[in-house]
C-alpha cells in the first residue's frame, strides 16, 4: 500500500515512518470500512426501526454478535470463510485474482464486521426515537415514504446516527484481534494496533510507547467529538 504522505514530508514534520505507515493504514482502512458500514448500517438500522416483519429480532441479534464475541472469534470465522476452500474463496480469486486474507482489503472486511453493529444499533435507536408525529405530519402533507425518510426521519435522527458512525470508525480504527487473524502482520498492511503488538513483542519498546500514545490521542479525539455531538443544540 502506498503511503498517504511522502516520507520526506514526514521527516520534515519529525514523524517517523514507523508511526505514520501503520497509522495511515489504520486511518485508511477505518475510513473505507466506515463508508461501507455507514451506508449499509444506516439502511439496516432504518429497516429494523421501522419494519414490522418476522425475524426482525433475530436479524438484529445476528448483526450484533461481533459486539459480544471476542474479536479473535470473529477473525477466526473470517479467516476460515475468506481464506478456506469454498465458494467465497473462489469468488475472491475470480474477482481479485487472489484470496483476501493477508491483504489490506482483508483488514477492511474485518473492520467492517467488527464496527457494523455499532452503526446499526445507534442508528436503529436514533431512528426509533424520532417523534412519530413528525412522520405523521409528513404523511398528511402527501410526502412519499422515501422522502419522509430522507427529509424528516434521518435529519431528526442525525445526532444518534452520526454518533453511531463515529463509534463505528473508532471501533474499526482500534480493532486488533480480528484484523490480526485475518491479515497477520503483512508489511504495508499493518495497522497501528498490530504495529504496537509487534513493538511490545519484538521491540524496540520506545516505539510501543509512542504508538500507544498515538492510539490514545486518536481515541480521545473521536470520543470527545462524539460527546460534543451530544451537547450541540439540535437546531
Amino acid at each position, binding site marked *: 500500500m502506498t503511503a498517504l504522505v511522502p516520507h520526506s514530508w514526514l521527516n520534515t514534520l519529525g514523524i517517523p515512518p514507523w508511526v505514520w505507515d501503520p497509522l495511515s493504514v489504520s486511518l485508511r482502512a477505518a475510513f473505507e470500512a466506515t463508508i461501507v458500514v455507514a451506508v449499509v448500517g444506516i439502511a439496516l438500522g432504518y429497516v429494523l426501526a421501522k419494519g414490522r416483519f418476522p425475524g426482525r429480532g433475530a436479524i438484529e441479534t445476528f448483526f450484533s454478535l461481533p459486539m459480544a464475541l471476542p474479536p479473535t472469534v470473529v477473525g477466526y470465522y473470517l479467516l476460515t470463510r475468506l481464506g478456506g476452500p469454498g465458494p467465497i474463496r473462489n469468488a475472491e480469486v475470480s474477482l481479485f485474482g487472489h484470496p483476501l486474507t493477508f491483504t489490506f482489503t482483508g483488514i477492511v472486511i474485518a473492520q467492517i464486521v467488527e464496527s457494523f453493529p455499532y452503526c446499526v444499533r445507534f442508528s436503529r435507536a436514533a431512528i426509533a426515537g424520532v417523534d412519530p408525529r*413528525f412522520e405523521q405530519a409528513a404523511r398528511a402533507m402527501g410526502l412519499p415514504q422515501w422522502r419522509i425518510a430522507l427529509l424528516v426521519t434521518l*435529519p431528526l435522527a442525525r445526532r444518534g446516527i452520526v454518533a453511531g458512525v463515529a463509534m463505528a470508525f473508532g471501533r474499526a480504527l482500534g480493532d486488533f484481534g480480528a484484523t490480526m487473524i485475518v491479515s497477520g502482520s503483512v508489511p504495508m498492511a499493518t495497522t497501528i494496533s498490530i504495529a504496537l503488538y509487534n513493538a511490545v513483542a519484538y521491540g524496540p519498546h520506545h516505539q510501543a510507547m509512542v504508538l500507544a500514545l498515538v492510539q490514545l490521542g486518536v481515541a480521545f479525539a473521536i470520543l470527545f467529538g462524539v460527546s460534543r455531538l451530544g451537547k450541540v443544540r*439540535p*437546531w
Partner: protein
Amino acid sequence: MTAALEVAVARRIGEFDLDVAFTVESGIAVLFGPSGAGKSLTLSLIAGLIRPDTGTVLINGRTVTDCARRIHVSTQDRRIGMVFQDGVLLPHRSVLDNVALAVRQGGGRRERRAIARSWLERVGAEGLADRRPGSLSGGQRQRAALARGLAGEPALVLLDEPLSALDSAVRAELRQLIREVIVSSGVPAVLVTHDAEEAEEIGDEIIVYDDGRVVGRRSVERPTPPRTRGNAPPESGVSP
C-alpha cells in the same frame, strides 16, 4: 349532494371502545367532548394513520377506508391537511420550507415556495418565513401549521386541538383566524376540541362525543352562512 365526509368506524384499543358514525356535508364540524372520548382517535382514523377494526370512511364521496372490502388508501393519498396540537413543524426546516413541502400542486420549487409564501401571508405569518420553528411562540407556530395544513389544496382539513396549548388571549385571536381562513378557502374541516367556547366560535356544526360514542349533534346559528366549497373537487381553486 355528496357529503364532504362520511364516517362509520369502530376501533377497540385495550379497554376503550370507539364506535361512531357521522356525516359532514360542508363547513367546519367540531368533534366536542371530554378528554379520552375518542375524538383524536377518530381524526387519526379519518386520516388513515390508524386502521379501524370495522367500518368505512369516505372523503368527498371517495372511499378511503372500507374494512369489508380491504380498502385502505394511504394517508398521503387522502388529500388531507392536518394541524396538530403543537404544530409539529419540522424543527430542522424553516417555516417557509415546512409550508412549501406540503404544497402538492405541480410546478417547480420556486412556484411551490411562492404558494407557501402566499399562505403564510394569509395567516399573518409572512414575517416568519425564514425562522426555524424552535424560535416561534405557540401562536406563531399554529399560524404556520394552519398555513401548512391548507397549502396542499386538501379535500379535507383535520385540526386536532390546535389551540389547547395556547394562552387565552392568543386562543381568542386564533379562533377567529382559523374560522376565517378555512371558510374563505372553502375546504371542509373537522376540528377536535374539549373547549365549549372554542367549539361555538369556530364550528358550523358540533358533534358531541362521550366515551367513544356520538351522543349529540347540533348546528351553530350564525348571522351569515359560511361560503364553503362543499363537494367540489380539490383542484377547484383553494389556492390563495
